[in-house]
């Protein structure tokens, strides 16, 4: 056990730090509050710049434009990005999930065709997995694709698609064999979102905004060469994508949470409780301490999980608790913010009395989604129960 940085880790960090010092945009604060539709060209430009410096996909293999960064280096990457408050990248699903899946499961022609434009943000990717009747039970999905000559014809509906409104391409999971057992009849397709018959509708969520979309497919023709992986092996392709989803998220969240708790501590010093700063109120102190301790524990769990993966090549059992840990912690953190701010906590962005322009009222509502998206807490507990503890399947 040695938590100091290795020479390779230090030099990776120093090189990135130097690059960011000259290249990170200074005006992100002015754009941050704007709707994503407006700031999107800005984010594309930022990703192109990162790509020019070979920093857009550090985890990817060298030959595909990455740096073959270890998990520790990836973690340092997000730390440094957060330290300079760099904007996010436009094509985050393409870089984080779909690109790695294409590299792992795609043909040479697919890699050549898609990878460079994922990196340069010329083509934005979205993901068509969940359906109205297939959420936690993803394998029960019904969108079907029938082979017609050298094309698949797709009919069905997807939901909860991030970046659907701007997506050029979609990793779509469809049913290609309805006679097979439900996990066995699925196939992953790479679908051009400009194809005739694709319709994208915004899905308004409880926060009032539309991060997600519904996708409708009516007789959409997809060339058979756009099958990702093998026909009827889509379940494994999808699982490979979801593995990247669960792996890469924690490192970034850690930093967001650190920013939140620092801000809450700052607010606690200025907000009054019983005639003194809330930061001196024993109950508030207990809650802030609990929360900041849990953020640290999330970091320790993450470091242990990374070390396990580096040593064995496979995610260890620690990884499976991360999703539950961060999502429930985020909800508790937001509730503490509400308690701290009292009546001000409810105020939405735009209200002149709102604290931090409504960040906390938004966070309170938005975090309800955390225990649902990317695998509900119930599904995560099933995974731990069955795959980690070896208890019999409950479903």
């Amino acid at each position: 056990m040695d938590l100091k940085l290795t020479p390779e880790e230090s030099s990776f960090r120093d090189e990135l730090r130097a690059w960011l010092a000259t290249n990170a945009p200074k005006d992100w604060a002015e754009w941050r509050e704007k709707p994503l539709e407006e700031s999107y060209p800005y984010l594309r430009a930022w990703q192109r710049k990162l790509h020019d410096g070979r920093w857009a996909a550090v985890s990817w293999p060298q030959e595909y434009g990455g740096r073959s960064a270890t998990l520790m280096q990836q973690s340092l990457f997000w730390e440094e990005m957060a330290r300079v408050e760099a904007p996010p990248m436009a094509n985050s699903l393409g870089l984080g999930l779909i690109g790695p899946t294409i590299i792992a499961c795609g043909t040479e022609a697919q890699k050549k065709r898609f990878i460079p434009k994922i990196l340069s943000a010329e083509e934005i990717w979205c993901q068509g997995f969940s359906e109205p009747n297939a959420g936690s039970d993803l394998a029960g999905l019904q969108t079907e694709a029938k082979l017609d000559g050298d094309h698949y014809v797709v009919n069905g509906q997807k939901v909860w698609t991030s970046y659907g409104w701007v997506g050029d391409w979609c990793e779509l999971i469809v049913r290609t064999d309805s006679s097979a057992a439900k996990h066995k009849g699925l196939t992953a397709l790479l679908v051009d979102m400009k194809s005739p018959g694709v319709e994208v509708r915004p899905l308004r969520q409880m926060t009032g905004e539309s991060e997600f979309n519904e996708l409708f497919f009516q007789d959409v023709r997809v060339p058979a060469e756009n099958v990702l992986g093998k026909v009827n092996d889509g379940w494994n392709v999808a699982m490979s994508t979801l593995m990247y989803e669960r792996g890469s998220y924690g490192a970034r969240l850690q930093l967001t949470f650190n920013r939140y708790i620092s801000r809450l501590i700052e607010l606690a010093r200025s907000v009054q409780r019983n005639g003194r700063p809330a930061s001196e109120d024993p109950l508030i102190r207990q809650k802030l301490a609990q929360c900041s301790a849990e953020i640290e524990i999330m970091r320790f769990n993450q470091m242990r999980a990374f070390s396990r993966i580096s040593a064995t090549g496979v995610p260890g059992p620690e990884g499976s608790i991360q999703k539950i840990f961060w999502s429930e912690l985020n909800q508790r953190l937001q509730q503490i913010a509400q308690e701290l701010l009292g009546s001000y906590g409810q105020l939405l962005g735009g209200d002149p009395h709102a604290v931090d322009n409504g960040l906390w009222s938004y966070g309170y509502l938005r975090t309800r989604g955390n225990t649902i998206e990317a695998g509900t807490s119930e599904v995560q507990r099933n995974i731990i129960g069955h795959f980690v503890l070896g208890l019999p399947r409950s479903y």
Partner: protein
Amino acid sequence: MQFGLSESQEFLKESARKFFAGECPSAEMRRLMETETAYDAALWSKLTEQGYTGIVYAEEYDGVGLGKVELMLLMEEAGRALLPGPFFSTVVLAGSVLDAVGSPAHKKKYLAPICRGEARATVAILESSASWNLRDVQLTAANGKLTGEKLFVSDAGVADFILVVARNGVFIVDAKANGLKISPMLGMDLTRKLYVLEFKDTPAEHLGPTTNLPGALDIASAALAAELVGGMQRTLDLTVEYAKTRKQFGKPIGMFQAVQHQCADMYLETESSRSAVYYAGWALEENAPDASTAVSIAKMYSSDAARAVGNRGIQIHGGMGFTWENDLHLYYRRAKASENAFGDATFHRERIASLVIDAPGVTAKSA
């Protein structure tokens, strides 16, 4: 950066687990807890042969010279076996205080016999206020003598000498000294006995000032949290095993999500406590700027987690979990005693608050 255990650390942990499983199985643990002091001389000499009694102390004091992470691993395994008797009080608590507060001469005289397995010892801190805040200590030595009372002193009944925390320093008292009365308290944890110490003009040797005492108590707190992790792991293992075999409505109860999800939570709580404890061990070893925060995080989180894991374990075991013959309640009892020792979760949250709210910037980040 490498958070995993090294090969030699894995080896130490593995061999400790085998040692405790062989030398202190449940039946032996139960036999010892029914005795007056829970101390067994034969077991003690085996602990000594393994080098456990001197694990973290310098070789010049007949120790083995391993680090704090290794200490955490050993205590985790001791906790898994619910090792009864004065090992924690002697080796971890008294040893750390001697190491931090004593002069080289004191260490030769008192720490070395502990390392060699020849002496048992403990530390007396709490008084009638039962406060773990050292500012609340009232007892004061005068003219080399102590008069007053200490409560909740672990394993004093089998100690050869006792380190007594007073307002004006840490003092050493011979357990057989004139004017010292040691009488048992009836604590919930049957494997770690508690005592009242009454001093009346008791001769006491000055060990040193209390300046370095908090550092020693940090080591003890982290080690106790490590023990809790071992106890949680044992409770989890027993519970998962039970949930796989116990059938109701024709199915193993572990198939029901109401049961399975509680097991998943026990796992989350156990693993998160373990991460916090290992980090604390590392931070103590490296004298990291956030070492005290890390200790409080570990002690705070595992104190709450051990209780939660125990609650769930007993609930899942149903009626069987409520019986004397099942071991769960013994871990549950230890968990409650350890939860309070060296400050409960509320105490440590306040300490974290004072470290991160009142003095921001102390928490070291990895980069």
